[in-house]
């Protein structure tokens, strides 16, 4: 393909044929008129994985999911089956499953469309997981700011109860299970699993000291599994189609399929479900590349908390190991792409304002550090910064990273470090009264409309 050649060479054997590279599983029938209904879901083998799981002993389900190699899709990539295995058995305490649907990481937009189009994949996964960890009560902690998704979840839970997939003695298995859909109230920090638990207990969402880990003392101090939406929603397909099928995708350490979310200055932003290990180059090749007439400048592999990449990293396989080895993290696979019209200082300043706003205030490095980063970055962006300020923001970020109470602080440091690594010159262009050399109007969605009308007319 001529398109591929424009990148400056392709990897051997790596084409850009979307029919071969993509693997829609969770998204396979999102284009059906009523994709969210139980009826549609069952037409696509919905709740078949649950039937198989309920016929297995709970420990066997845990072992099966562990053998599949499924890793957490919420950012950290912890093996899902191992998380389940940590739940002590026969301890006489209630066990809880809490689904983290607080998707708020900047750039991340996979769980919300998944729940809007196919909520039953999550409900079925919940039944399987609760059978495995011997839980009778599950909670879906959905961020509050997505009412259309809340409606579909309310309806999916209602349908599942009516069909006997939730409630007492599910399909005669003896499993009793209640699911509560819980709407949050606006706080990024509640995506952190222990802050989420505090919030679900009706408190300010502030992270807890670990240990004890939630598997031992989670919700109401009882053994609790906290899993991301996509992790749990991936489980039914594994049970239904088999762990070998799952392992046939991706790599040894990063097996399976996942949702990649392409956004920003690309020709076709959206959801692309593919085996782990696809590259951004492949995704851009198949989807029409960057918007016409522009080139990639910087991008995030998994949300703003993962160190940014540049066009040097177009061929990094997007799996846990390769992205880590390249100096970032796979995170949520939120591929935010920015072209050459975007000021990196502006982007980092805005992300930092976000972290300062969302810092819960519990620990000093994050609360104070993010505040001062914002002050310095605003000055730098406005041309009021000095050369020493660049070392200063690096130093402050260093005092947040690894020294804050939870990962929000580490996330706040990531864009600072990575942007200084790749774009220090651009920071310097802002200093000493020079200000921002970019025109924000050129970055907008509509920036090129007039120009292209002129060309084509």
């Amino acid at each position, binding site marked *: 393909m001529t398109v591929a050649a424009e990148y400056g060479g392709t990897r051997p054997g790596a084409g850009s044929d979307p029919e071969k590279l993509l693997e829609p599983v969770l998204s396979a029938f999102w*284009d059906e008129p009523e994709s969210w209904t139980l009826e549609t879901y069952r037409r696509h083998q919905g709740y078949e994985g649950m039937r198989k799981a309920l016929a297995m002993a709970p420990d066997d389900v845990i072992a099966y999911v562990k053998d599949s190699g499924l890793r957490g899709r919420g950012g950290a990539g912890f093996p899902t089956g191992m998380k389940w295995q940590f739940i002590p058995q026969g301890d006489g305490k209630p066990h809880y499953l809490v689904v983290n649907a607080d998707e708020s990481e900047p750039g991340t937009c996979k769980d919300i469309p998944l729940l809007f189009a196919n909520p039953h994949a999550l409900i079925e996964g919940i039944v399987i997981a609760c059978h495995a960890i011997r839980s009778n009560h599950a909670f879906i902690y959905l961020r509050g700011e997505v009412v259309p998704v809340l409606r579909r979840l309310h309806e999916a839970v209602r349908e599942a109860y009516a069909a006997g997939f939730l409630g007492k003695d599910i399909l005669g298995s003896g499993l009793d299970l209640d699911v509560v859909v819980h709407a949050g109230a606006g706080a990024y920090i509640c995506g952190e699993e222990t802050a989420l638990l505090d919030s679900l207990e009706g408190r300010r969402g502030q992270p807890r000291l670990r240990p004890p880990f939630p598997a031992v003392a989670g919700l109401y101090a009882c053994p609790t599994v906290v899993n991301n939406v996509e992790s749990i929603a991936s489980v039914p397909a594994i049970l239904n189609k088999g762990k070998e099928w799952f392992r046939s995708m991706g790599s040894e350490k990063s097996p399976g399929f996942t949702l990649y979310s392409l956004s920003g200055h690309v020709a076709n932003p959206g959801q692309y479900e593919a085996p782990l290990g696809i590259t951004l180059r492949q995704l851009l090749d198949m989807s029409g590349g960057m918007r016409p007439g522009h080139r990639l400048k910087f991008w995030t592999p998994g949300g703003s908390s993962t160190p940014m990449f540049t066009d040097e990293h177009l061929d990094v396989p997007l799996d846990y190991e390769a992205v880590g080895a390249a100096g970032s993290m796979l995170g949520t696979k939120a591929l935010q792409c920015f072209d050459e019209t975007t000021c990196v200082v502006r982007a980092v300043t805005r992300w930092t304002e976000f972290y300062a706003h969302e810092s819960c205030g519990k620990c000093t490095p994050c609360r104070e550090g993010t505040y001062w980063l914002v002050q310095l970055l605003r000055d730098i962006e406005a041309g009021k910064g000095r050369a020493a300020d660049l070392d200063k923001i690096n130093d402050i970020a260093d005092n947040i990273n690894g020294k804050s109470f939870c990962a929000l602080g580490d996330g706040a440091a990531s864009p600072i470090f990575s942007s200084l690594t790749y774009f220090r010159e651009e920071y310097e262009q802002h200093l000493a009264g020079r200000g921002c050399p970019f025109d924000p109007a050129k970055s907008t969605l509509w920036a090129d409309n007039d120009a292209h009308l002129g060309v084509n007319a």
Partner: protein
Amino acid sequence: MNDVQLGMPQLPAPDYPADVRARLEADAREVIARYPGSRSALLPLLHLVQAEEGHVTRTGIRFCAEMLDLTTAEVTAVSTFYSMYRRRAGGDYQVGVCTNTLCAVMGGDAIFDELKRHLGVENGETTEDGAVTLEHIECNAACDFAPVVMVNWEFFDNQTPESATRLVDDLLAGRTVEPTRGAPLCTYKETSRILAGFPDARPGAVEATGGAGPASLVGLRLAKGETAPGRSADHVVAPRTTADGPAEALEGEPPSGRPDTQAPSGHPSSHDAPQETSASDDQHPAGPIAEEGE
């Protein structure tokens, strides 16, 4: 301005009228029964009192405290932590413009500036007729539909300053407004009731706007052998920067954007502006109390 009062403590908040109280208590008991621990119902109950009054009042805080056997200080501490709980009266329609990095860059800043100018309000303020409260919001998990505007937490995707202006004009005129993804708009209070855990009972609300949005389907369509919509013949796909500098095409780029939609150079953001302090808990004052040493 912040209505911080030092000195004399306030009298306890008045209770709801008896009929309102009875109705809310029935709702509250239904919510509390869903949880193994009653305090877990606090976030839903705060949504519930917003559904009654449009914001979290001292009366609402007192109600939550009494239902859950908490102090009003404990409830206030929680309600002020979360950005979705309003601390003062707002409009029937909460218009939130995403100005987190990606949406801001894609045009969210320009949209927010245009709406502030058009409505004559600043961040967090309400139009005089009480119809629209404007605010900027953080990333709302719809980056593939950027720039995004939320009204009462329904999605308005791929907005421009012009489309967003039409949107608020429709809201001000009382016309029925339908989102890109979500149900026809109901009021802020009605939305809060859904958030409290009471499903939207309006016919067609769940089905409204169909399945996945267009961007959600791009990958699926490609996998089925269909062509991506945004693909055009003249695009340039991310050429690497060569030793000669950036690709040629960038230099001769014609001027773009409309003068009136350009974001200001400073990108002011009120992220760290001080928030109003909550009303203090009259029953548990933090100030000096005359017990010890008297």
